[in-house]
């Protein structure tokens, strides 16, 4: 079951134009967009797809009010697609769609799809830190801080986080039926899950929650590095969007994060520099307190040295 990761997320929205603008401002590229919806791609072609909430082609959500209607995962080859379809057909309905993809439902009511991955491979070095004694350096005279006006784009759809009423059942489905592996776990909350065809710390994170919270906490794309991601976040805030938590760095997964509100009934995150693990990795377990979630949290300071209009001793309030 070599699932390589997320391919796309499909959302039902009540304001296509507003949601489209939001995704473009986030950094995604609009492809085939009309007043009925459209597709918004990262550099490798992974995407968010939006459609009007009254579009009859939309699959149902797990509960009323959930705007996420489908999570599409990519697989490497046709044999894997067939194996997944056969496995799921043992106890649930599986549909082959006209585009050749497979559609079914997971054990907590989320519609899931599988397709041959359409990810476009590309080479573009990520952020490199210069460190005395280091082996890899940025080219001499190249700059660590993205210059004003530089184009910053999300690289790839990273992960989705579900609130599920029965987290053990949900985890068992992804592990036993689809070949995911738990990389780390928040005790009493849920597992970070990695599919067999990816080294990313997680593509899915499951949070056990009461039934009335059933839905999505957030989803996110990988950016090229923390400086790029945080610069993009500040630009997003300047455009009027509402930050929720961040910028900071998680402990489990080491990914840099910044969460924002969204018109999708869940948060959207920007992330960068997530750990990679293979099968030799031993899952850790931690309690899900704020202290165990953020290794640090950054705060922007507008004024940091004494100068015109600033008190003599600076502004360290």
């Amino acid at each position, binding site marked *: 079951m070599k699932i390589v990761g997320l391919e796309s997320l499909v959302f039902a929205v009540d304001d296509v134009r*507003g949601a489209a603008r939001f995704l473009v401002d986030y950094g995604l590229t609009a492809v085939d967009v009309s007043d009925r919806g459209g597709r918004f791609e990262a550099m490798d072609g992974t995407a968010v797809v939006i459609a009007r909430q009254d579009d009859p082609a939309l699959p149902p959500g797990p509960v*009323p009010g959930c*705007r996420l209607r489908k999570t599409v995962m990519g697989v490497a080859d046709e044999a894997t697609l067939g194996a997944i379809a056969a496995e799921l057909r043992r106890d649930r309905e599986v549909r082959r769609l006209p585009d050749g993809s497979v559609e079914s439902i997971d054990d907590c009511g989320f519609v899931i799809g599988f397709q041959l991955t359409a990810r476009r491979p590309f080479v573009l070095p990520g952020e490199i830190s210069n460190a005395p004694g280091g082996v890899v350096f940025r080219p001499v005279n190249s700059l660590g801080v993205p210059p004003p006006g530089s184009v910053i784009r999300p690289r790839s759809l990273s992960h989705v986080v579900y609130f599920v009423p029965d987290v053990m059942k949900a985890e068992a489905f992804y592990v036993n039926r689809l070949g995911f592996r738990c990389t780390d776990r928040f005790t009493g909350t849920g597992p970070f899950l990695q599919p067999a065809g990816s080294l990313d710390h997680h593509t899915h994170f499951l949070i056990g929650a009461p039934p009335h919270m059933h839905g999505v906490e957030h989803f996110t794309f990988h950016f090229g590095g923390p400086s790029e991601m945080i610069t993009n976040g500040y630009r997003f805030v300047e455009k009027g969007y*509402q930050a929720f938590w961040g910028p900071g760095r998680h402990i489990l997964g080491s990914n840099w994060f910044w969460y924002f*509100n*969204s018109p999708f*009934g869940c948060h959207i995150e920007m992330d960068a520099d997530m750990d990679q693990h293979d099968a030799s990795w031993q899952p850790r377990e931690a309690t899900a307190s704020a202290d165990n979630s953020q290794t640090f949290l950054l705060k922007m300071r507008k004024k940091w040295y004494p100068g015109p209009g600033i008190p003599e001793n600076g502004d360290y309030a």
Partner: protein
Amino acid sequence: MATTRERAPAGWVRLCRADDIGEGQSRGFDPDDEGQDSLFVVRWQGQLHAWRNACPHVQGAPMAWRRDAYLNAAGTRVVCHAHGAEFMPDSGLCVQGPCRGERLIRLELVVDVDGELFVNK
């Protein structure tokens, strides 16, 4: 209660002109200059209502998805754009989502004789 722009009673702050907020519209305010809107005002069925910008689901969570965007597209519900909780614009009651049955915190509003809108913080 009528008051004048120059002398709002203690605790009351001028927000904007009352008719700046049209039917089915919302607007956020940051009267204490906290860098984030601490309250928002919506007009629904002609009436203005002011609510603290703090979702009962996660303590103090800001609710708009972009500046001044606190409502659904139809203008019929206040929405928390963190996890999608929906509230009645006039009673603040959460009718769908993770904090169903809980309420937003209401702030008192008055419009003075000149049509200026004031909130009691």
